[in-house]
């Protein structure tokens, strides 16, 4: 009877041993984290849209149909989902004044940086328009061009050097 009991015990032990994992695997997972801050950048600024000699008619007024285009920058990008581009523009102007003559030249500005503006008539100093964008990039494949079409004059134009500015401000938003 003792012999039977020992034999039974050994058999149970064998079954217990067999139930242990015969090919156990183990794994661990590591989480990797990073971040990208919202940012914008303009490179290749200080571009000039150069008209050289502006054509005036026999009446001394700026002739219509004078248009020039140039990139406002080489590359403009924002990586966030809620960015804004503000464009501030002022008419061409020259120093000095004289009664009966215009010392400013208005123009119509269009740029893909402000698509909602369409063709935007710049008739007063520091006019602004703001457009909200998601992530975008204007670069060599999609130039941030600005096109300036001079408005026809309403008064004879005062002689002088004329200049105006178009300023692009970009603000990142995540």
């Amino acid at each position, binding site marked *: 009877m003792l012999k039977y009991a*020992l034999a039974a015990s050994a058999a149970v032990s064998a079954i217990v041993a067999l139930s242990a994992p015969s090919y156990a695997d183990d*794994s661990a997972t590591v989480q*990797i984290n*990073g971040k990208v801050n919202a940012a914008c*950048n303009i490179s290749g600024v200080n571009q000039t849209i150069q008209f050289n000699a502006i054509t005036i008619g026999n009446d001394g007024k700026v002739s219509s149909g004078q248009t020039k285009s140039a990139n406002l920058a080489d*590359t403009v990008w924002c990586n*966030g989902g809620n960015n804004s581009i503000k464009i501030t523009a002022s008419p061409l102007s020259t120093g000095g004044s004289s009664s009966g003559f215009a010392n400013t030249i208005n123009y119509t500005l269009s740029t893909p940086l402000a698509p909602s503006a369409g063709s935007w008539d710049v008739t007063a100093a520091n006019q602004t328009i703001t457009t909200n964008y998601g992530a975008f990039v204007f670069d060599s494949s999609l130039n941030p061009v600005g096109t300036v079409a001079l408005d026809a004059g309403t008064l004879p134009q005062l002689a002088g050097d004329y200049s105006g500015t178009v300023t692009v401000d970009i603000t990142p938003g*995540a």
Partner: protein
Amino acid sequence: MERKLLTLAVAVNALAGICAGPCAASDSATVTVKGMVGSACHLGDLSSAQIDVGQLSNNTDGTLASISGTPGTTITGSWCNTGSKITVVATPLVAQGFAGAPPSGFTKAVNYTASASGWGSAAASDTTLGNTSGAESASHSGSQTLNDPEANTIAVNLSSFSTPGSGDRLVADSDYEGTITVTLATNAAGSP
């Protein structure tokens, strides 16, 4: 007298029945004790279950920044009591909060190579294959096989960060996430 003889004969036969077969002064029995040790592997403790690689882009041009150092973690106290196979599966770092597909020229994913070293002489490594949306079109993994039992510390490191397209800019997101899964499995072909 005859009855007494018969009684004695019966008694002798009864004694002979108790010692039927070889009748010795002592006896023994042998019990064989058996057992087994199942093949098993165990991964130890992670020094850190999270690796933060920090800011991924540079603010000058928005492309992937140079990740300083070699981010990583260690797994201590790992062992396999037989031949084993270590496998690494990594997923790309993907922007979690940026909705939809990224605009042209941008990516939501950063790829990298994850390696697990210290388990045998060669590291097991896996390189992620995320596209600009972060999806991977094919499964992938890296592995190494050892024929002998091993007990060692495993170092898990990240390197060779890249974007799906050269020069891709990264969309802004405060939470880029990926995972590295290290698995130790017993190798039936190994020894002992």
